[in-house]
């Protein structure tokens, strides 16, 4: 059958075929729709929680908010350290097309230093492109105003404000307050070890020195969090939640800033330090190390040039002399030694010897001299302290022996950290046989013991240690740890921290304290006392002890002549003193390096400070109490015993003493 030329269509069959195919196509469409729906069901129902979390993760960022650092006040509520807003010019490199051009324009507009620009380009290399780099750290208000007027020309450049520490009294308190500075890598490591990283997430500075470092935990506070919604560019759209940071505690120090300033004035740039302690509670009223430096320099990053100048200065301003300076205590420890002599029954208050200006042991060639070449004549313990007789203490030390001295002086706190709330503290050295062997690989000689009697030899102490030992004397054995921190400032007022004490020093005879303290009274108030001149006509009654520390050994027959000796080898002038004598409120320790005699160079500083401290107090006119020795003489028969010491008799058996000592 030939194929017809004209195709005859079977319309019904075609329509049926098409309808079948259409139904199939529609079914396929429905199946595909079901696929889409089942996939959407999987995304929107099955995995809803997961995607909701990721969606929130996209848009919600938790930003740490730095707590405000606690303020620091002096004991009278005067502000010492505050937080001030500082403005820095921040540049986001990523947002700027022609960086060099923009920087040049900014440099012209704000008169930027070439140093700033150079530093900026150095920082730029280290930073990621989208992070801000600071172009200038401290903008003056004028510069902020100038930039604000031109800000629209500089997209990607902004002025950022934050709070930075400011030390109102500058260099007067550096060695007390210390300073804060930018958190560095080492700080971060320490924070990580302490699990404090998160707490410092928004914090810029951390305490590096002094109270700022020691009480960092109190001052810092706790970080807060801001939950914000950001868009895909990271721009903050709105704040969703805010848990505010807990600001650091406001601290009140024992420091009396006016007394501190008085101390700074009294030093007038001379090298040395002073520590003033309230013996009643161990509060550090003043602590000044001279020369000092401006801590505010460090807050904003000191230039390496300025830092090297401080570091290499001959005067070593970076060292806290009051707590880190280790000096031979010299004669300032004679009261302490005398107390031990009395306690150990080596001497009695009446024991006396005749001082001819020399001290010699039998069969020992060496001669120990008194600072007074003619000697002081008859001296008992009281006069020995008052006139600072060396011979008496050579003999006492010789008889006590190094072991007893070492043990008892350690009990006073010599050679150990006081526990003052500063990390910058040295422990000094209270020598003992073992320690000298360990440190210098050398035996202990009898000559060393004799030098210990006048606070020389290997014996070193820090001013704060000496101050603590003085308060121990004043408090008759009660040992209060000196503290700079007084308490917290709350809205309701100051809440003081409790005293910190160590195990008290026990004595067999309480009267022995009175003997020693009376001698210190005599040092200031009796005519022959070494500090008599320094405190002449003071309205209050004070007591004290001077010291003159030899820094180089003078050959036996040579005379000490300050003018012939290089300045750095001249004697250190030292003084410990307290007032009022009957109810002590302040104990002051002064060291003036290479200044000469303690009585004439160090005591006046203590006098200036006490005069200031007591300027508002009225004291009754007082009659000098006569030396108990005099009264003893008058009633010599009462005791009856002959307590005079024959110096010659002690000189007989030096070798025995050595063997006994060992």
């Amino acid at each position, binding site marked *: 059958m030939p194929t017809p030329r004209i195709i005859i269509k079977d319309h019904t069959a075609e329509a049926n*075929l098409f309808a079948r*195919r259409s139904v199939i196509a529609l079914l396929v469409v429905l199946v595909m*729709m079901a696929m889409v729906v089942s996939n959407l069901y999987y995304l929107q129902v099955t995995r809803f929680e997961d995607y909701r979390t990721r969606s929130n993760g996209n848009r919600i960022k938790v930003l740490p908010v730095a707590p405000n650092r606690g303020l620091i006040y002096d004991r009278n509520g005067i502000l010492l350290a505050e937080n001030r807003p500082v403005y820095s010019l921040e540049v986001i490199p990523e947002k700027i097309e022609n960086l060099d051009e923009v920087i040049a324009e900014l440099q012209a507009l704000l008169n930027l230093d070439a140093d700033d620009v150079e530093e900026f380009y150095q920082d730029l290399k280290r930073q990621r492109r989208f992070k801000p780099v600071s172009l200038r750290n401290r903008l003056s208000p004028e510069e902020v105003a100038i930039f604000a007027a031109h800000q629209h020309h500089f997209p990607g450049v902004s002025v950022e404000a934050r709070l930075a520490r400011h030390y109102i009294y500058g260099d007067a308190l550096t060695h007390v307050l210390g300073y804060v500075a930018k958190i560095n890598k080492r700080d971060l490591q320490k924070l990580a070890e302490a699990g404090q990283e998160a707490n410092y997430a928004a914090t810029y500075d951390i305490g590096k020195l002094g109270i700022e470092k020691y009480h960092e935990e109190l001052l810092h506070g706790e970080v807060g969090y801001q939950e914000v919604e950001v868009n895909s560019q990271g721009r903050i759209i709105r704040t969703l939640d805010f848990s505010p940071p807990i600001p650091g505690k406001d601290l009140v120090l024992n420091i009396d800033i006016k007394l501190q300033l008085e101390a700074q004035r009294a030093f007038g740039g001379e090298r040395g330090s002073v520590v003033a302690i309230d013996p009643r509670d161990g509060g550090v009223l003043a602590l000044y190390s001279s020369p000092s430096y401006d801590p505010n320099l460090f807050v904003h990053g000191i230039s390496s040039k300025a830092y090297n100048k401080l570091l290499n200065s001959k005067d070593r301003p970076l060292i806290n002399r009051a707590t880190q300076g280790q000096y031979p205590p010299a004669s300032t420890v004679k009261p302490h030694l005398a107390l031990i002599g009395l306690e150990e029954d080596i001497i009695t208050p009446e024991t006396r010897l005749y001082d001819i200006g020399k001290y010699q042991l039998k069969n020992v060639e060496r001669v120990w001299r008194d600072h007074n070449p003619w000697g002081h004549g008859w001296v008992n313990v009281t006069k020995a302290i008052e006139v600072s007789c060396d011979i008496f203490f050579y003999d006492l030390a010789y008889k006590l022996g190094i072991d007893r001295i070492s043990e008892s002086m350690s009990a006073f706190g010599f050679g150990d950290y006081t526990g003052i709330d500063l990390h910058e503290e040295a422990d000094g050295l209270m020598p003992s046989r073992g320690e000298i062997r360990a440190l210098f690989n050398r035996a202990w000689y009898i000559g060393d013991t004799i030098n210990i009697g006048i606070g020389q030899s290997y014996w070193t102490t820090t001013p704060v240690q000496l101050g603590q030992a003085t308060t121990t004397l004043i408090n008759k054995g009660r040992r209060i740890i000196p503290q700079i921190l007084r308490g917290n400032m709350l809205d309701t007022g100051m809440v003081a921290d409790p005293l910190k004490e160590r195990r008290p020093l026990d004595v067999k005879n309480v009267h022995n304290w009175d003997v020693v303290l009376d001698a210190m009274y005599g040092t200031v108030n009796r005519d022959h006392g070494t500090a008599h001149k320094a405190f002449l006509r003071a309205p209050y009654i004070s007591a004290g002890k001077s010291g003159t520390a030899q820094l180089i050994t003078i050959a036996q027959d040579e005379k000490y002549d300050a003018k012939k000796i290089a300045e750095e080898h001249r004697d250190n002038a030292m003084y410990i003193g307290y007032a009022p004598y009957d109810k002590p409120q302040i104990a002051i320790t002064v060291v003036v390096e290479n200044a000469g005699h303690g009585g004439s160079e160090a005591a006046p500083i203590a006098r200036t400070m006490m005069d200031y401290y007591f300027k508002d107090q009225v004291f009754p006119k007082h009659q000098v109490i006569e030396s108990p020795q005099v009264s003893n003489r008058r009633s010599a028969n009462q005791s009856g015993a002959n307590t005079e010491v024959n110096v010659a008799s002690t000189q007989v058996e030096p070798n025995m003493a050595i063997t006994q000592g060992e």
Partner: protein
Amino acid sequence: MLRTKFSTDNTSLLHRVHCDGLLLLGLFALMAVGLVTVYSAGGQDLGLIQRQLTRLGLALAVMIAVAQVPPTAYRKLAPYFYIVGVLMLVGVLAIGVIGKGAQRWLDLVFFRFQPSEIMKLAVPMMIAWYISRFNLPPKIRHILAGFILVGIPTLLIAKQPDLGTSLLIASSGIFGLFLAGMSWRFITMVAIAASAFTPIMWFFLMQDYQKQRVLTFLNPESDPLGSGYHIIQSQIAIGSGGLEGKGWMQGTQSQLEFLPERHTDFIFAVFSEEFGLWGVLGLLAIYAFIVIRGMMIAVNAQEAFSKILAGSITLTFFVYVFVNMGMVSGILPVVGVPLPLVSYGGTSMVTLLAGFGILMSIGTQKRLLSR
């Protein structure tokens, strides 16, 4: 049944301008959804809405104009459309303008013009014209000839390269052949051949960026900030919408700009985020309604040409929907296909509505006597 219910009283005016009321209802519903979503996704920019409205108006005008032409005219014109279209595609490859990294545009002095858009209609018309000349079901050799007719423009457009459009054009032609009654045996053979062809396509025909898209599709998390970013953010948007959605203009993924191409190709993610699964089901219902209505027009058409053309236009429309939703929700690789009548802008909108114009012409212009 639906038709009789509405057509008696409601469509008298519409019929005079050859508009199908139900189809128009579905299209208006989609446009409304589109405008609402574009407003939210485009950052509440009224200018955007204005431009979209202008474009919709223009496209609707084109649709009505197209609907006035009787289907017989289209049948006669089909081969000429096709030949002119293919010539223009060749022209694009020779002298076309490069835009967005692909050579798709022909600069006709007054306006730029994408010949591939013409082919979206010319190919199904050509297939319907060609295949309806024979007794249906078609013979194998006619099917093969039909494949060649589809293949030429498909390859030319793929060469531009425009994978999405070439895919749509290929499917529109193949739908025509399928509806015409392509035998199941042949379909099976083609399926087997296609799967054998896949490696050849991968290694010899696909461009690097196309391969990258496929790889990213297979594992978007492999490059979360690069090529996988789109699909990850899109899935997060959809998934975080949940059942009920975050609410209109409350979608954080879109409002905070984590989602790229929010008001164009990825608008479905915005819709899903803000209106949830319930909203999506509603949107799908509108699409299903339009597809069903289109298929009813096709089934009720008088001639094979009209049936096949109406059917393939309708099914191609669904392919748009499926490909877009599939790529946005991560079950298909990312190809640049907008969500029809919802996505903002595009020349495709005019072509789409012109297609619906043809559907309406087929649905409303019937000769009283069938041949």
